[in-house]
């Protein structure tokens, strides 16, 4: 056990228990590494499993950055790139932060290759629809700072919990919690009356 862990056990036993409950089990990364090895060996079913597990996170990261129509294509590109370069990955346990980085880089590349476009609001065709409301919320989230935008989309759109976001993106639990809290506060402020 690390020094900080011992100190936490002595002074803050309750917090430590809570953290252990919320943090992912230590066996999980091992499972992930085994999955990666299977994918490297050419197991197609393993790749499907890999895709199902990580695609929501990749989708959320890209949705936070690029127009909605382009998201699915870029997700596919990200997974193909990951599949090709999976052998070069040194730490097999850190595959999800690695793929998250690929997704972020791919989103940046999208804006380098293509000229910036303006999305037409669906309010023009369907007024007062539930989808319009969703679009508005999503557009409002996209106006938030990048850190809040990504975590809020992963939480609200992809339905991931805070610990899952922390595990898959490689961020600390504390920073994910802060991002969610502050992002939600800003979103409430921006949406204001409509949310009530």
């Amino acid at each position, binding site marked *: 056990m690390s020094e900080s862990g011992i100190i936490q056990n002595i002074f803050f036993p309750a917090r430590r228990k809570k953290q252990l409950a*919320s943090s992912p089990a230590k066996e999980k990364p091992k499972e992930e590494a085994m999955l990666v090895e299977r*994918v*490297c*060996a*050419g197991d197609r079913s393993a*790749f*499907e499993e*890999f*895709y*199902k597990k990580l*695609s*929501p996170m990749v*989708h959320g990261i890209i*949705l936070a950055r690029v127009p*909605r129509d382009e998201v*699915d294509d870029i*997700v*596919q590109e990200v*997974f*193909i790139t990951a*599949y*090709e370069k*999976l*052998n070069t990955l040194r730490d097999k346990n850190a595959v999800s932060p690695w793929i998250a980085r690929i997704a972020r880089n791919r989103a940046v590349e999208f804006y380098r290759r293509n000229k910036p476009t303006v999305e037409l609001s669906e309010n023009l065709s369907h007024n007062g629809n*539930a*989808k319009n*409301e*969703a679009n508005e*919320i*999503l557009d409002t989230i996209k106006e938030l700072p990048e850190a809040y935008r990504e975590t809020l989309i992963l*939480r*609200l*759109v*992809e*339905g991931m*919990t*805070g*610990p899952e976001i922390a595990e898959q993106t490689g961020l600390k639990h504390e920073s994910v*919690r802060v991002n*969610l*809290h502050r992002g*939600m506060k800003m*979103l*409430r402020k921006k949406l204001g009356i409509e*949310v009530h």
Partner: protein
Amino acid sequence: MKEDYLWDKSGNDPEIEKLENALKAFRQKDTTPPVVPAKTSTIEEKRNNPWGFFRLGFASFACFALAIISLGVFQFTQNETQSIAKIDLKKSVIEPVTKKNDYIKQDTISKEIFTEEKQNKPTVVKATFKPTKKKKRKIINRKKVAKKSTHKTAIRKKVKTNLPEQKVEISELTAEEKYAYNQLMKALAITSSKLKIVKDKVQGLDNKPVGKSLR
């Protein structure tokens, strides 16, 4: 607890639930993975790759060639150093030889001097032993006895050694002595020339005008 629901979906928060329901529409619908190439280049495949073998072969050949070149260069440099050392040694050997040559030259000079001296001086007469008639007879008798005896050669040798054909020669000088002699001769020549000048001056045979000397 509102924050708990936002963090790990524990408890209830109608606001967030409403947002979640609204944004569900943007979730990833298509969960089929992309079509990827049938095989990936794994480490094992890379090992079996013929190009990998070629690379290995090329690398080993390059190493071998490099080793040979370095060995050749090393030997070449060593030979050079050895040749330089040999030359040095030769020089060290040659130098005394040249000195010897000098000495030889000096010897020749000294020989010439000696010949001149010989010409001036009376020649040394070679002392030869001329046996008398009685002694001649004795010798003949001895020879006869020797012929009869089995140890002919030994006696002959004795007879030969007894023959008084000794030559009295002038002992040659060593190289150093000759050199010293030469130097001495030069010094004498210089002093003689100086003495001659002094003598001329004393006798008034100098070419300089008298008036100037008076001044």
